[in-house]
């Protein structure tokens, strides 16, 4: 049974149709990369999954159960689904440790000592154990993003969402975050990433989803999609990215 199933999701903002009858199902341990132009609906789709946006129609099933729209239902859902944002969204008034333990102690009722231990563990996983007492403002973008990943990871979610988490980073800081993502994938985390990192998608994603104007146009293994796009939209998209530099031309076969 798929861990997440989206059936016929539609969403519009005013006259703009963000999502048009989108359906997708994801298995446990699957890594899904969603690509597409700005405005193609990628972020809207992600935000519908953990309840940040409410679809106009369609249903979302997590673990086979319909997602409950009540406050308690959403809180229960968000204990299982974690999200990392493009602009990190760390809490600036708390230390790195505080950022991580807050959700554990308040939302999950974990005792403080155990929460701190878990904080150390996840920080070790992202390579920032020595920054446990630091204040977010003092960290680089790449470090803040890794803390954001650790914060989400500490809640032990069964599914993690990533919304263009490298797009706001200086190029030299992207690598350290990608490394963490690759490790998460190898460790078996179920991940859905909206991303522009084609290299990562090719290497680590099980499934590539190409969205265009609110609909899924192509879906399948990245190697197949990059080498032989079926739709002209995807072909154009790949062409548009290619001039970005020879360093990613190897991605496209």
């Amino acid at each position, binding site marked *: 049974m798929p861990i997440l199933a989206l059936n016929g999701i539609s969403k519009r903002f005013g006259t703009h149709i963000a999502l048009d009858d989108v359906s997708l199902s994801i298995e446990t341990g699957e890594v899904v990369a969603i690509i597409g132009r700005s405005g193609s609906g990628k972020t809207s789709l992600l935000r519908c999954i953990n309840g940040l946006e409410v679809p106009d129609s369609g249903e979302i099933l997590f673990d086979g159960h319909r997602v409950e729209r009540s406050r308690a239902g959403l809180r229960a859902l*968000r204990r299982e689904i*974690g999200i990392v*944002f493009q602009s990190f*969204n*760390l*809490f600036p*008034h708390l230390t790195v440790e505080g950022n991580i333990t*807050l959700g554990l102690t308040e*939302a*999950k009722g974990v005792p403080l000592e155990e929460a701190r231990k878990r904080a150390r563990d996840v920080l070790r996983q992202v390579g920032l154990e020595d920054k446990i007492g630091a204040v977010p403002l003092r960290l680089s973008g790449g470090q803040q993003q890794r803390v954001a990943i650790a914060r989400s990871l500490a809640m032990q979610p069964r599914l993690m969402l990533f919304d263009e988490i490298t797009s706001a980073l200086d190029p030299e800081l992207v690598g350290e975050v990608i490394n963490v993502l690759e490790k998460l994938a190898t460790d078996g985390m179920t991940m859905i990433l909206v991303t522009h990192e084609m290299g990562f998608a090719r290497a680590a994603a099980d499934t590539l989803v190409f969205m265009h104007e609110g609909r899924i146009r192509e879906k399948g293994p990245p190697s197949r999609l990059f080498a032989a796009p079926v739709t002209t939209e995807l072909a154009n998209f790949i062409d548009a990215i290619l001039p970005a530099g020879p360093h990613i031309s190897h991605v496209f076969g």
Partner: protein
Amino acid sequence: MNRTFELSEFLFVAAAVRWTLLLSLVAFLGGGIVGLLIAIMRTTHNRALRLVTAGYIQLFQGTPVLMQLFLFYYGFAVLFDMQVDAWPAVALAFTLYSGAFLGEIWRGSIQAIPRTQWEASACLSLSYVQQLRFVILPQAMRISIPPTVGFLVQLIKGTSIASIIGFVELTRAGQLMVNVTFQPMIVYPVVAALYFAVCWPLSLLSRFLERRIDADLGIKRHL
């Protein structure tokens, strides 16, 4: 028999500063509690609460303080057919007045916290109360300190209006001394100087804190 304004007259006036400060403190603390409730109610999803508190704020910010005092002191005495002492009436009026202004300041501070902080804390499955308590209010309080101190100055100055209904604070003490010495051109500047001595340091503190917090947040601001 005329007295001239000498040391004992000055001391009488200076001693009245404590009533000004006491009234300001009571109104500030009471208004703080009211203001916090109002700020939270102004930022909930409940439309009715938002409208009611908006009306409350509009009422106290859109009418003269003197009128509010008259209503509480003379008006309510007749309404409830009881003797209203100056202290409770004045304290209540200034508390509600402060509550409106502080509520508006703190509402602004809460709304200045980016929506992304609400989202990030919600996605950690925190409840609304937990979001306010651990993420939003701590940040909002910090940026609200300069305007809050600024309002304290406004409040201290505002208490001078209580003199009009005979409440004895600094301004009233000055009036009493003028009645006795017939030297308004000495007494009132002295009264003004005493207010200045209290208010100016607070104004400077407010501006200093604002610069400090802006620097921390990495913002450059024209002052």
